[in-house]
């Protein structure tokens, strides 16, 4: 039986892991065999809520100072957290 990875990207309204989730994405290495995300918009109110549900934090986004002349121009969602969970996939033999 082999492990497969599920990835959860959360974007928050602040740089802290307990800031409010404003966007998310889910990538499933088990192709549907593993557990889905909880229902809800969003599935987790914050990154800490995801930790409590068993997700492991891989990465947080860096804080990047505003570029001169672009201080008041928004771009991509700034505060990104990447989490994973590993799922034993009984369909796959090692």
């Amino acid at each position, binding site marked *: 039986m082999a492990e497969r990875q599920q990835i959860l990207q959360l974007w928050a309204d602040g740089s802290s892991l307990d800031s409010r989730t404003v966007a998310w994405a889910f990538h499933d290495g088990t192709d549907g065999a593993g557990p889905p995300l909880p229902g809800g918009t*969003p599935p987790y109110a914050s990154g800490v809520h995801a930790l409590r549900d068993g997700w492991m934090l891989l990465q947080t986004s860096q804080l990047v100072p505003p570029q001169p002349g672009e201080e008041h121009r928004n771009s991509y969602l700034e505060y990104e957290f990447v989490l994973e969970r590993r799922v034993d996939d009984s369909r796959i033999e090692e």
Partner: protein
Amino acid sequence: MGTEHRLSTRQMAQFVADGFIRFDAIVPAELNARAIEEMAQLEAERFAPTGLKPPHTGTPLDDCYPPPAAIGEYLRLPQIRGIIESFVGENATFDHDWTHHIQPHATYVQPLHVDAITDSPDFTFDIQLFWYPHDVAPGEGGTRFVPGSHLRRVRSSGLDRYQHIVGEQQLSGPAGTVVVFHHGLWHAGQPNPGDGHRWMHKVRLNPTVPQVRLWDTSDLPDLQNPPSDHVFARILPDSVAQVFRTMHPWTSITDHRNEQVQRALLWRYLTGDDTYDVDHYLTRLERRAALVAAADTA
């Protein structure tokens, strides 16, 4: 042309804050029915050796899709022409168009994107009209879009990763609904699990005149707040500033304040009023910058 069908100041302000505005069932039923046939024909013949072709890019709007074309008739409807002229003025030109056709039971999820390329940093803008000629049921192929995303500086492919954004919308509504997008609005095609075809015509239009006070400005004196309007000092209730304080649920407080600044800058362009401000953000910085200039010359 008179202002009978032009948008109001309130509608323009809402467009500046949201990046879109919708008009439910604004196109008559008979025209919607003919349009579906024509959209299908355009889809089939656009690149064929002969048949129905779109206009050349740069064609004046009045010359696009001459009679008896249904698409041309739609673009010349007084209510549609009034909307167009409010944003891009008279003598707008055709950029491009497309028939967006989603088959029944289609499963493709188009990634979130913004059209074309990262645009110029000034506040001129194009509009895109999305015409849905039949009822679109919830979840059956209506366009997904993100209100308030239109003033951000992004590269289109960078938006792929946002599968879900709090506050995003998916269009549903009655036949003849037209939604007008600012060219920078984030959007994506969606699956159509329904049994019917989902047709939509999208056209992008370029302005050829400065986009200054093109709408019905009769209510502008009542709604235009003074530059001193500040949520933590004194405000004019029910003003343009109040509309610009609309906070979309997916933005951080920092992003929201930056968006207020961008909306104020766009409104300066639209009104020709270089003093316009919301919550003093621009005026504060401009006054302090003037101190530096004054010190340099002292």
